[in-house]
């Protein structure tokens, strides 16, 4: 009986004592010329599961909120949300639960600059792969944002489709040894990868 109580208390402590991991987002938004404008923006974000502590400052156009880490919200997702609310995202910063800080300067997408969001599969293993893949994607003219997810191996891209396309981006990626859904890197380039980066090519 005593042992059962100890086990139950331990389990309860583990479940309720552990705090959710939180990412903190700070986004600069243009176009908030009135208080009702801010209302429209807040309502758009309120619907997201895992979001809390939404604050909007009208004077400097800053949108702040917390988001549950495990749901992996990217700065690109936030950008798309702000745009669907009818405003212009300028810059985004996120402090992840592990204290890592990411920043992104968004480009304006209205007017004559056609920006496309798309995703491609890129094979890789680790943080070094992430850094390498994103760097080569961003080096392609017209690509304004690249975000590779280590778990899903999906590379989220934002690019100007008058300057480049997915095929060109994939061709750039395979030159550094990473296979994509449609193209395969040559063996000699793959073999130059660091040991921890040598992903399973059968997948």
């Amino acid at each position, binding site marked *: 009986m005593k042992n059962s109580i100890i086990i139950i208390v331990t389990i309860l402590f583990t479940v309720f004592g552990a705090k959710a991991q939180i990412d903190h987002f700070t986004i*600069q938004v*243009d*176009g*908030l*010329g*009135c*208080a*009702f*404008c*801010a*209302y*429209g*923006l*807040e*309502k*758009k974000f309120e619907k997201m599961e895992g979001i809390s502590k939404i604050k*909007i*400052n*009208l*004077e*400097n*156009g800053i949108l702040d909120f917390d988001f549950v880490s495990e749901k992996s919200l990217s700065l690109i997702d936030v950008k798309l949300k702000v*745009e*669907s*609310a*009818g*405003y*212009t995202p*300028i810059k985004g910063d996120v402090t992840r639960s592990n204290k890592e800080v990411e920043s992104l300067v968004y480009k304006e997408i*209205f007017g004559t600059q056609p920006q496309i969001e798309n995703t491609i599969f890129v094979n890789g293993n680790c943080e070094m792969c992430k850094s390498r893949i994103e760097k080569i994607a961003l080096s392609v003219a017209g690509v304004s944002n690249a975000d590779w997810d280590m778990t899903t191996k999906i590379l989220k891209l934002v690019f100007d489709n008058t300057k480049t396309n997915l095929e060109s981006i994939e061709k750039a990626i395979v030159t550094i040894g990473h296979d994509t859904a449609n193209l395969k890197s040559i063996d000699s380039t793959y073999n130059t990868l660091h040991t921890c980066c040598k992903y399973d090519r059968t997948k």
Partner: protein
Amino acid sequence: MKNNIYMLVLLLCSVITQLFAQGPPITADKPIMLGAKRMVIKTLTEVRTTEKGTYTRVPIMAHYLPTSNSLIAIHLPLVYANGGNSSLGDVQVLGKYQFYRKDKTAKTFRMVLKALETLPTGGNWDVSDISYGKFQSYLGVVVGYESIKYGVSNEIGYNVIPDNEFDEFRYRLGFGLPLLKPIYPVKQINLFFEYTSNWMTEINQYELLYAQGIQYAIKQLTFEAAYQWPLVQTINEKVQRKHSVFLGTRYVF
């Protein structure tokens, strides 16, 4: 006539010296869209006293934004004439499309195309915007600049009534003055100064109206009231306006 013009100029001068951000205008329109998948339910009752009699229009308006730059709406009005029985007035269907937007920090400039179709569901009372009982088509552009320091809203458009001589060129101008510092969540008291100009081009008759309004906004709810009177009227004396009182409320979902 001269006195009215002097008053108009004086009011414009006093308004231009202190303009701040405000909520949506009362009798004028605005180019601000509140985001995709939003709905606004509102009403703006008008009690209009004219030389012909007193008319009341009570519309229930439902506005929906399918995307962040488009809006569709339906206006269902109940109308009363001279204290008599109520009836359905002219139902209106509205569409808006924001075709230009330039955003900066705490400010925005927007341009919206507006189309308003009025259906002949009401009786022929021959009172514009109350009940005409005729098809009417309106096409206009709403242009506005809003910041937390000042805001101006303009609308220019043309209303056509087929087989009728009362086609109208319309211009609306609105200024808002917040009495409290703009904050979020919304808690604001605004004063409005709004001008409506109607020119019946075929019969060359003109009216310039001025509305003084006050608005209280808290979170999603807004209450507003305005008093409107003519500054200039060259229309037939038998149908001239004396004044109008507006009372309204809106709720944003």
